[in-house]
């Protein structure tokens, strides 16, 4: 063992596949830190709706104890945490993927001996450390100082919340990834991002809890994977489901995650072929 060898432990670590992805995540994290002010505003603007929703619900709850089984305390908690979770995988993750495709940088991703989907997950993780960190600050400051949100119902529900949150995070990255693949066929990334954001806000239960939605919309939202991103973690947080209910919800999240993973890999291969056609 030479002195040089012992000075570069990080370098040796990169030879295993797992830490290749980790170093990708680290690189993205550094990029994200460079844009922290922008990220701050990007997260901040999603919280405009937290303020609006707070006041609207406050008016609705005046003289009422509960709406669709949710108390005023629970609704407030729901609104703040829903937007906090929704900001975890934010604007930059999606636009970065799209930009790579539009500028042609995606070629570099293709020649790397790595799984492209995992690469994107790793990058998203890097962004999330910053976006999620800032979003956490917003959530905690607004939630604890101004809106006095509740703590998780029980220790078990807190643990379930974290588990569902992690699966939800992976789900959202894959959905954003699938949407960004569409930029292989169209130039308009903005329109795609707007649509994705809007549908996500409705069907994940960010704008309004699933339990309050009109029947037909509730049915659609309950079947689709997007509920796993915001609604499912929050149901655990508020202690609205436990026991077999919880198993079912986590199971649904997991099934969707696997399905999305398979679809994402297939879609990526399709998209890959399109690139070849354009280049040939």
């Amino acid at each position, binding site marked *: 063992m030479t002195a040089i060898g012992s000075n570069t432990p990080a370098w040796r670590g990169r030879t295993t596949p797992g830490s290749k992805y980790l170093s990708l995540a680290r690189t993205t994290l550094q990029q994200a830190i460079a844009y922290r002010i922008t990220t701050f*505003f990007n997260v901040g*603007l999603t919280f405009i709706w937290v303020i609006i929703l707070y006041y*609207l619900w406050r*008016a609705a709850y005046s003289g009422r104890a509960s709406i669709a089984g949710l108390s005023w305390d629970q609704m407030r908690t729901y609104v703040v945490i829903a937007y906090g979770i929704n900001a975890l995988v934010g604007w930059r993750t999606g636009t970065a993927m799209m930009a790579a495709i539009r500028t042609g940088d995606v070629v570099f991703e293709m020649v790397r001996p790595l799984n492209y989907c995992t690469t994107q997950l790793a990058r998203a993780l890097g962004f999330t450390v910053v976006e999620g960190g800032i979003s956490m600050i917003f959530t905690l400051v607004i939630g604890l100082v101004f809106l006095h949100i509740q703590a998780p119902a029980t220790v078990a529900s807190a643990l379930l919340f974290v588990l569902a949150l992690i699966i939800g995070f992976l789900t959202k990255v894959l959905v954003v990834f699938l949407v960004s693949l569409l930029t292989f066929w169209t130039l308009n990334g903005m*329109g*795609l991002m707007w*649509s994705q954001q*809007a549908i996500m806000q*409705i069907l994940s239960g960010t704008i309004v809890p699933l339990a*309050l939605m009109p029947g037909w919309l509730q049915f659609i939202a309950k079947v689709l994977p997007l509920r796993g991103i915001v609604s499912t973690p929050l149901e655990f947080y508020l202690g609205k489901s436990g026991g077999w209910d919880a198993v079912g919800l986590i199971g649904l999240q997991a099934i969707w995650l696997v399905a999305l993973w398979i679809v994402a890999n297939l879609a990526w291969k399709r998209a890959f072929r399109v690139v070849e056609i354009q280049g040939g």
Partner: protein
Amino acid sequence: MVRLLRIFFRLQLVQLRSALEYRADFWIAAVGAILQQLVSIVFLLTFFGHVTSLGGWSLWQILVLQGLVMAADGIREMFADGVWKLRADVNDGSFDRVLVRPIPPALQQFTALASIHGIGNTSLGLVVLVLGLARSDVGWTWWSVPVLVLTILCGTVLTASISFLTNMIAFWEPSAQSAFPTLVALMRDFAKFPLDVYGAGIRIVITVILPYGLISYYPSRLVLGVGDSPGWWATTPLIAAGASALAASIVWRRGLNHYQGVGN
């Protein structure tokens, strides 16, 4: 003035032609923009499934507020979206080109981008507005329609001026990445609901500092007859449009003087 208007529309037409080369893009953008607006409508419909009124306003009356804001912003998007290119133009130096042409720079900036997809938001806004009015049991008078039209047009001027102002940050703070202008533009969502529900701080901001309320809440109260509203509220859209346009033109002049190009 007529000449300027002709140039304005001529430039818009040129942008429009280039935009129409990508038809699929137009549809994607239009659908995306409409979906974004639908979020607040879906929320409202769900919300009113559980309550009957919000601060004394019915669902349909609130749809009037939503429609006014959406239509104004849609028209702004169609005719003045170029201001959103200002930051990028100042950054890469292509703003120099604007300065050497014998046409007012502001006019060129407004027409730097044709966001024809704004027609999506405009139509949705008008549909929502008409639906809301039809079900709101409005006591129609001779000034109702003129006030509504005036409100939409002044709303266009206000939202355009505010976007213009916030994007002028590029002259002083040349990082093209800032999300600050988007943040300010999104504050218009506050004006999609009756201001009565908010706390005093927000009400003051949305009335005085970013007067989005003057192009939705105040004229709507007058037209819809919600509560007591003095007749002069009919002129609040004019105040908002005039003041914001004045502020934009003053800051624009200072910005132009401050601009030094990117040079190297």
